[in-house]
């Protein structure tokens, strides 16, 4: 086995701390975005522009009394938030944040670990994310928590299917399970979203559901279940749950950017690379270009994080059965259709045109068949 070099360790640690930092500051962004959307100004007392707000929250929660409900399952009650945080952190390991750095003549990938099943890893860990909520909600011995936990579990399982099928369509075009390979195929502006717009929409919807964000935030829907699965949690255990949610959001945004928006690719990257190499020399130029790519990647991530928040403060949430209906009767068939279209387009030799023709055919057939499938009018 190749021994880990110090550079790799540094990269891994950087990724770890950057994820944590971003997740912490997402809470601040959430507050500011919410405030701005609602014609308010948001936090501005804690430090300049309220920038220390996440720190204040974290400190407060660390020093808040730790409650253990009398009838709670002690071990699981503690395990729940830990598990949620742990699974949320694991995913960022396989995300290729940037191209590569050349240090001392050796090339290092800006990525935790490069495995050839990266996308499956992401998928597997996301599937595990629900345990934290499920266990915590059950262990609290509170009906509202249990309802929240059950809602979380069922929605996660349901939306994983559609998500998986959307990913399969991506795998078909990229012919690899490695996230890095998928990203590298979308060189320049050759992004997957142009090939599979429908797949992107499906994936995005499922991502919202997997992160439990509005309109799919049923597990903690404030006005129905008080605080859902974390009703009984106080202090840093609550903090871990909230933190895990934001971490998930960050990772999910990163995954969306990788799968559909070319990760660290951006239009004109070859030109930038060539110019930088010309200006600063082979090694330095390449490294700077990597950092530019990193910047592009983070721009995309932040856009999606913003999108998450933007949608959250706009739409109402679903009801439990509607959520299930959308997942099982809407997204899964669509994902299958998407898979078929992608496969056909792939075989046709021209994925882009074939994809759009397939989509158009599907839409036409759907609209034509619509009057037949229409259920009995529910409204007056």
């Amino acid at each position, binding site marked *: 086995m190749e021994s880990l070099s110090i550079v790799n360790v540094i990269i891994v640690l950087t990724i770890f701390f950057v994820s944590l930092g971003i997740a912490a500051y997402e809470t601040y962004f959430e507050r500011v975005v919410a405030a701005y959307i609602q014609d308010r100004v948001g936090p501005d007392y804690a430090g300049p522009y309220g920038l220390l707000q996440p720190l204040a929250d974290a400190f407060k929660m660390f020093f808040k009394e730790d409650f253990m409900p009398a009838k709670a399952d002690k071990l699981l009650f503690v395990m729940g938030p830990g598990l949620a945080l742990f699974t949320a952190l694991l995913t960022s390991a396989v995300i290729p944040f940037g191209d590569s750095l050349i240090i001392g003549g050796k090339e290092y990938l800006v990525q935790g670990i490069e495995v*050839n099943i990266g996308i499956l890893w992401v998928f*597997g860990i996301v*599937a595990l994310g629900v345990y934290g909520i*499920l266990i915590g909600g059950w262990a609290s011995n509170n009906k509202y928590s249990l309802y929240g*936990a059950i809602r979380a579990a069922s929605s996660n399982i349901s939306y994983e299917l559609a998500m998986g099928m959307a990913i399969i369509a991506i795998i078909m075009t990229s012919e690899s399970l490695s996230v890095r390979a998928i990203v590298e195929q979308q060189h320049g502006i050759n992004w997957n979203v142009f090939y599979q717009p429908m797949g992107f929409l499906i994936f995005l919807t499922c991502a919202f559901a997997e992160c439990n964000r509005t309109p799919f935030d049923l597990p903690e829907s404030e006005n129905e279940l008080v605080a859902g699965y974390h009703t009984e949690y106080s202090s840093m255990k609550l903090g871990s749950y909230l933190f895990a949610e934001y971490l998930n959001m960050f990772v999910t945004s990163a995954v969306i950017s990788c799968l559909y928006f070319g990760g660290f690719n951006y239009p004109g990257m070859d030109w930038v690379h060539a110019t930088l190499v010309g200006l600063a020399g082979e090694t330095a130029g390449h490294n700077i270009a990597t950092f530019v790519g990193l910047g592009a990647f983070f721009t995309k991530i932040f856009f999606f994080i913003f999108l998450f928040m933007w949608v959250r403060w706009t739409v109402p949430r679903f009801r439990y059965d509607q959520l299930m209906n959308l997942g099982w009767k809407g997204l899964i068939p669509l994902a299958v259709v998407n898979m078929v279209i992608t496969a056909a387009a792939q075989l046709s030799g021209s994925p882009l045109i074939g994809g759009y023709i397939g989509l158009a055919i599907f839409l036409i057939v759907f609209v034509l068949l619509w009057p037949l499938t229409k259920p009995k009018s529910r409204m007056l």
Partner: protein
Amino acid sequence: MFSLSSIQWAFYILAILTLFGGLGTIMSKNPIHSVLYLILTFFSLSAHYILMNAQFLAVVNIIVYAGAIMVLFLFVIMFLNMKEQEANELKKNSTIIAASIVGGTIGIILVAMFRQVQTQPTNPNFYDSQIGMIESLGKFLYKDYILPFELVSILFLVAMVGAVMLGSKAKGERDF
């Protein structure tokens, strides 16, 4: 004895974890704890797969078993809200006797198997590191074993349809 390589260390630790999880599954009183132990077992099994360079199998094991099936299990058990009494019914004498008979039989079979089995050390010269990888797996499945693979998929489809049929309620009932 103490000069185990890191792989061996990992193997022994995982083996202990697996056994611990398995025992926990059958010994814990609380069904929820049982399920969680089972998940631990699956995880350590997946880690074993990774040790054997079968990454795909490992991840699929996690996705399918730990990620989906066990969640459903947990889900159902939480709904059932099994009480202490019902859990204790599993501890009746007849259950214990049946369990020991089954366990003993399996033990005998295992012993018989291990007496027969021949272990060969891997020859590093002919070792193909890609053998457990997804690419070769895919080629095997879709070239050599395409017919069984498709048959299995039909079987699954039939099972799925059957499950839906069983699960669906009669007409007129509320749909959830």
